[in-house]
């Protein structure tokens, strides 16, 4: 059987920089090809060329045995290639239906037939078993739902080859499961799928073939059945991965205390509902939960980004209620934000400027209210060394860093404050396994030094790996707190879905 798609010797140069260096891939009908590799390995670049967003410096694309050239996404779309971008390309004010049909809208005399569109979307949704609510606004949808919109959009456009660039980075475990099922189902229906991901277990679950990239080159091309996670990891990072260091025992004092914290939302349900939680010194408390259950608000309430209607928040005994972000940071709070581009950096700012945030007023770096550039640069250089952050120069824009490298920079910055308490929200989202290792190690090290950490992550494996205790959030409440040894993925999943383990029994007693 011939290949549906072949990319041969694809090379892409940005100036003198070789982002892709003679990469070849093949893809058959009904097959799932996983492409893995470190941050900046060139995965996205390769896909952008396939989708017509970039022109290759050299190399050829062969589609169904014929050479093809794409000058823009519309060419690629016409030839049956669809791409679900890493950062969703949705119109948040438009409905799900509108988002899906845009570009190929059903019309009558030039008028947009929205009713027919909704029907078509519903039909498509049923056909591929991808659940969406056609009339909802895209902006009101959960991340998982938004992803489904993207996939349906691609299917609606008639794509036979579907590119998914890091589709699981932002999904909850349950949503990941669903997505993987969908991918498999689509492949069974004869679609060909290219999946880019950093998560090797997913690769093992769903892929037929795996292509590994490093520094713009192919370092491995294997069938799934012939490989293992460890082998893939080694091909990716060029070395063996290490075990996480030991966790020492700590029975610290309470550090962060939340008492009956409530935030009234816009809707009738409160966003945070009488939430109480304590983080001790020398402890990592993981917060698990399906996204949208108040985790973001919890983080923002502690760090002072939103105001709290009721309750009490104390850090090392100091009352934080009504205090500014700066005050809280001075008292001893550091914060790895959940969205690095929204909160954690300014894309247009230089790496140095992004790094200096929070230090600009510290007396080691500030004299007569002038920022001491050179002493600060020294510090940033130590960060870059420690985390092996790949930067061209400190004057480069943060937006030009790959996501993983930017994340490492932010982690380094927040750890650099050496505060007693750290909020680590999605600390490894979209980050390759090499970088993930560094970050996990750093967080654990901080704990071992006796600091308290609140870890919020949609990645259950991460929570399970790092946390001493695990709090599960559901609808703005903490429904349960489990100790490390009691927690399993299954128990957490049940709690996250809103079910108490002993729910049925309590219900029975109250009704009785």
């Amino acid at each position, binding site marked *: 059987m011939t290949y549906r798609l072949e990319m041969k010797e694809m090379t892409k140069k940005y100036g003198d920089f070789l982002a892709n260096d003679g990469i070849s891939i093949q893809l058959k009908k009904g097959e799932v090809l996983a492409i893995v590799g470190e941050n900046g390995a060139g995965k996205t670049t390769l896909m952008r060329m396939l989708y017509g967003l970039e022109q290759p410096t050299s190399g050829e694309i062969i589609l169904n045995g014929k050479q093809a050239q794409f000058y823009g996404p519309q060419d*690629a779309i016409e030839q049956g290639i669809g791409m679900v971008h890493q950062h969703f390309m949705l119109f948040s004010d438009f409905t799900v239906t509108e988002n899906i049909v845009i570009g190929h809208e059903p*019309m009558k005399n030039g008028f947009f037939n929205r009713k027919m569109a909704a029907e078509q979307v519903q039909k498509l949704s049923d056909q591929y078993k991808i659940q969406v609510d056609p009339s909802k606004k895209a902006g009101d949808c959960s991340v998982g739902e938004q992803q489904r919109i993207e996939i349906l959009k691609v299917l609606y456009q008639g794509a036979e080859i579907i590119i998914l660039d890091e589709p699981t980075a932002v999904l909850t475990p349950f949503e990941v499961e669903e997505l993987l099922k969908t991918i498999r189902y689509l492949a069974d229906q004869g679609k060909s799928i290219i999946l880019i991901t950093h998560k090797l277990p997913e690769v093992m679950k769903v892929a037929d073939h795996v292509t590994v990239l490093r520094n713009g080159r192919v370092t491995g091309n294997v069938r799934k059945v012939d490989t293992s996670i460890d082998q893939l990891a080694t091909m990716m990072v060029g070395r063996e991965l290490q075990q996480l260091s030991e966790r020492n025992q700590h029975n610290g004092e309470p550090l962060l205390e939340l008492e009956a914290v409530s935030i009234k939302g816009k809707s009738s349900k409160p966003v945070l509902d009488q939430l109480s939680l304590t983080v001790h010194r020398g402890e990592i408390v993981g917060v698990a939960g399906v996204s949208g259950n108040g985790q973001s608000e919890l983080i923002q309430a502690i760090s002072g980004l939103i105001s709290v209607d009721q309750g009490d928040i104390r850090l090392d005994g100091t009352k934080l209620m009504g205090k500014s972000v700066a005050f809280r940071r001075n008292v001893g709070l550091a914060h790895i934000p959940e969205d690095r581009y929204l909160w954690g950096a300014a894309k247009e700012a230089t790496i140095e400027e992004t790094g200096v945030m929070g230090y600009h007023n510290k007396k080691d770096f500030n004299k007569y209210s002038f920022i001491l550039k050179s002493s600060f640069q020294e510090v940033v250089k130590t960060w870059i060394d420690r985390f092996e952050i790949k930067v061209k120069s400190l004057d480069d824009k943060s937006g030009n860093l790959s996501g993983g490298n930017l994340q490492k920079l932010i982690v380094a910055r927040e750890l650099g404050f050496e505060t007693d308490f750290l909020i680590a929200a999605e600390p490894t989202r979209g980050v390759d396994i090499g970088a993930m290792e560094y970050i996990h190690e750093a967080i654990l090290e901080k704990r071992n030094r006796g600091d308290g950490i609140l870890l919020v992550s949609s990645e259950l494996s991460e929570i399970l790996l790092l946390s001493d205790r695990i709090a599960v959030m559901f609808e703005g409440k903490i429904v349960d707190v489990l100790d490390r040894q009691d927690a399993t993925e299954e128990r957490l999943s049940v709690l996250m879905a809103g079910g108490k383990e002993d729910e049925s029994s309590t219900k029975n007693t109250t009704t009785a």
Partner: protein
Amino acid sequence: MELFDYSLFASAIRMVSPILLAALGGALCARVGIFNVGLEGLILAGAFSAIVGNYYSGSVIVAVLTGAFGGVLVSLLFGLATIKFKANPIVAGIAINFLVLGLTTFGLRAIFQVKGAFYDKDMNGLPKWDLPLIENIPVIGKLLYGHSPLVYMAFFAAILLYIFLFKTVVGFRILAVGKNEAAARSLGLKVTVLQYGAIVASGVLCGLAGTQLSLGQVTMFTEGMTAGRGFIALVAMMLGGSHPIGIIGSSLLFGLMDAMSIRLQGFSMPTQFTAMLPYVITIIAMFFLKDRGLESQASGQQSSR
């Protein structure tokens, strides 16, 4: 008291129509993500070319066409600078205002051999339409009766634009471009074509606004006769949230206040204060319309960075 009477409202409707037309044009640009501060220049171009068309052809219809065409020509220049050459839209818009002021003044000299103003008593202005049915409508009949066709056209255009934007496929895509240009591009929408289309349409609307000014409200061209109406249109556009119906509201508010401020001149208040009225009222109105027009603001802010 004689502050409110039919003539107040009729005068407001007359005076508001060029502003309304131009604000609709501005809204179209805003909807494709281009903040157009060159409305003043576009209107002026329309006003001038309408007069030229009228003078040479003696036909009002030709004048309306040349008026629209004048707006289109200048808007294409604006589009070329902002879309093709990615110039900062605000800078380009200001430049357009300067440019058209210079060109029309120069044109007065070159074409009519006059300075300052061109007036010819034999020139025909736009007719006043005495629509038969309208007059009989109680109360508002009198207001709506006997305006120039472009006045009706202005309100009609608003409704048409509303239908176009929110009911047709092309309109839908235009909205998409304005909301998220990157996404629209990645979908393979012809973003550039849509942007040019919107800019040309805005040129037509502003050209008609100018025509109404130079041939509807008066029958002459004078240097800088827009007298800041383009900026008022800009405000009306933002206040109306770039929504056609909202713009009708905001333009009418402004027109009414303006007409009222004239009447207040008689009431022993310094004219400077009566003249402030429309602006102050508009600011007050914004307290109640906080969330409107955020998009246009965003586009403005982006270009500052």
